[in-house]
């Protein structure tokens, strides 16, 4: 399950980001009438088609796996979290319909109708992401039911959807999808520009992708701050594990890196910033931050993994932010597409960082919630299927996914290599590029 999710989350994120880029490019074409944007929209649409298909099938697998692997969780929680899943189903349905219209309808409907269907794909992609993340948020902050003798009663699915973790998780994940897609696409086009600086196609592509990336990353830092504060309120044990913070103290230091040692209840070899954690969690350098020691030992998540993942996520985010600031400054100074050689190289390097951050961030929220599957309500071990020999389907799906990932990368590369259209800029376009 974890593996399927780790795989699916990449496609889901691209499934949110790519349609947006595609619709933006076509919108630019409708505004400016420059064919390069049309070519770009078509090329990105091909990428979207491949990713969406794989995202759709891996999402199907997930909807079944919820039951195949966590039957007890679904039996108990299905009635509560089924509603956002149903809404997600409809959003996904809409996305599939209009992606069909978009991909196969270039010469069958008017340009405007075509663009609108692209926008519908982008909007429903975002909507389905929102509903799914709401479900995950509920697992972190379960609300909307009463627990009587181990059974849920008086359930209220609407309250469950609007649980206190929903807002910040949804915001953080949606922005993450945009950031990751923006940087990934920017990296691809930056890579080709390094050897072919004047290629109009890649220049226009980089412009749009970079704009998306540079606008979303600072917003993401703000939403990360919101998330940290909410977590300190809702799941202090998770926050403590993220920060490898064992002892409750005021003026708590922020620990970066280091080796958390559960037995000694301290983190060795870490870079320590005095008062930093208090400030991050409560915006007050002197505030008291709850440490892991307050919780029974059997309710600790794996501190090492959670702390390391968290640091990697934040590190990746900061690195992307730095690149974005650099690109922004260059653009500000020269008022044209920043194409400095070193910036392009940095962009290529930063390409995968968004996905690194998504994967590690997801590990933080999932592993940080352990041993619970529903925080404070149901333990993961109680939810798992009684099926023996789970290693067999697990290995089959792992092999299948690795195979799919390789093919997808290979095919996407083909789409970009087949750049046919204008290799060189024509003079008038140099002027307004």
């Amino acid at each position, binding site marked *: 399950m974890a593996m399927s999710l780790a795989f699916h989350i990449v496609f889901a994120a691209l499934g949110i980001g790519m349609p947006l880029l595609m619709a933006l490019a076509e919108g630019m074409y409708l505004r400016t009438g420059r064919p390069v944007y049309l070519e770009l929209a078509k090329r990105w649409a091909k990428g979207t*088609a*491949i990713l*969406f*298909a*794989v995202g*759709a*099938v*891996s*999402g*199907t*697998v997930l*909807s*079944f796996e*919820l*039951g*195949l692997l966590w*039957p*007890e969780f*679904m*039996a108990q929680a*299905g*009635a*509560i979290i*089924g*509603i956002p*899943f*149903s*809404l*997600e*189903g*409809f959003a*996904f*349905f*809409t996305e*599939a*319909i*209009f*992606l*069909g*219209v978009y991909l*196969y*309808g270039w010469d*069958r*409907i008017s340009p405007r109708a075509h663009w609108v269907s692209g926008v519908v794909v982008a909007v429903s992609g975002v909507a389905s992401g929102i509903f799914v993340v709401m479900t995950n948020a509920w697992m972190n902050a379960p609300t909307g039911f009463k627990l009587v003798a181990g059974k849920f*009663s008086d*359930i*209220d*699915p*609407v309250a469950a959807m609007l649980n206190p973790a929903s807002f910040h998780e949804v915001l953080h994940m949606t922005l993450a999808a945009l950031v990751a897609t923006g940087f990934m696409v920017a990296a691809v086009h930056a890579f080709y520009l390094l050897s072919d600086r004047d290629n109009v196609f890649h220049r226009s592509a980089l412009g749009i992708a970079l704009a998306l990336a540079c606008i979303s990353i600072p917003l993401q830092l703000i939403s990360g701050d919101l998330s940290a504060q909410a977590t300190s309120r809702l799941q202090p044990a998770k926050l403590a594990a993220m920060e490898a913070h064992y002892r409750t103290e005021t003026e708590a230091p922020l620990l970066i890196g280091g080796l958390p040692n559960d037995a000694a209840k301290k983190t060795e070899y870490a870079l320590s910033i005095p008062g930093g954690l208090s400030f991050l969690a409560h915006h007050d350098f002197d505030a008291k931050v709850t440490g892991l020691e307050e919780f029974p030992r059997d309710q600790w998540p794996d501190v090492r993994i959670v702390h390391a993942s968290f640091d990697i996520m934040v590190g990746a985010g900061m690195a992307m932010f730095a690149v974005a600031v650099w690109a922004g400054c260059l653009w500000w100074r020269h008022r044209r597409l920043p194409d400095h050689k070193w910036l392009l190289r940095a962009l290529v390097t930063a390409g995968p960082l968004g996905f690194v951050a998504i994967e590690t961030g997801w590990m933080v929220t999932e592993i940080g919630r352990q041993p619970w599957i529903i925080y404070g309500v149901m333990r993961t071990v109680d939810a798992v*299927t*009684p*099926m023996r020999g789970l290693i067999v*389907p697990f290995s*089959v*799906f792992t092999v*299948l996914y690795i195979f*799919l990932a390789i*093919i997808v990368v290979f*095919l996407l590369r*083909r789409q970009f290599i087949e750049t046919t259209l204008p290799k060189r800029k024509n003079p008038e376009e140099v002027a307004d590029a």
Partner: protein
Amino acid sequence: MLELVVGIFIVLSLVLYALMGGADFGGGMWDLLAYGQRAGKQRKIIADAIGPIWEANHVWVILVIVLLFTGFPRAFAAMMISLHIPIAIMLVGIVLRGSAFVFRKYDSKDDAVQRRWSTVFGVASFFTPFFQGVTLGALTTGRIRVIDGVVKTGFFAGWLTPFALACGVFALVLFAFLAAVYLTNDTKGEPSLREDFRKRAIVSGLILGPVALVVFLASKDGAPEMYRGLTQWWSPVLLVWTSVCAVVALMALYLRRYALSRIAAVAQVSLILIGWSAAQYPNLITPDVTITNAAAPAITLRLLIMALGLGAIVLLPSLIYLFTIFKRDKRG
């Protein structure tokens, strides 16, 4: 009452999945079985027919699953435990079918590469519906016992019985027949291709009869509750109508009245699934899990029905839009 409404929606989604998604699997089968000098053309028309719509068609099965685990979470959990194996195999098929189809479209147009993807696409199109049929069949065998919400009969009960396997074969032939009928309607301007698919439709339609009989006979021992359901007062009516549709579809194909054959085939498939659900009612997993004892609390069901209404308002016009764009002019 509420659970019945949700149940009806599930059956409806199942019917739509069979009519649309099922036919796409059938298309994959004919892709694999394409032969003769027009094999390439046959493959192309199949790809053109299912390309724009298969993803939307596929979502119906996701809808079935989501409705099931929201409306009847206990039943969903029990199904996923007891039928873990056939469902997992079916999922592998779903993954391979969809990705192979898309990969084929965007990969090199080189013959060897295309043929490799075609094979994956075709083979997966065969075994996915087979296991869907097996899974549905297994639910009615009465071999899967669930006591106090706990599955008592392990992971092999039900789905390895002759009845369930016969259901798998039935699903396979049914989808192949349906796809061939649709394809005769999609090949208006190309008489020779049309003849190819007409032949395939007639052959698969003729095979369907005996297979249906085997399923019916196997149900006497293999799924006694189902057999009882199928021999109630209303079932002769339904059976007669299903047979009438089957005969009309075949006659229409014989007489080259393609539009009529499509209508009859659609009615036939719908009646089969509706009859199956009616015979199964009120069981979800015969005999222990019913739509009453597995239903979610009323508030969830009510919200679910509201969500369905809302979804229908958005989806139905969109779907109609999709189909009118791609099924008008060129094909009809």
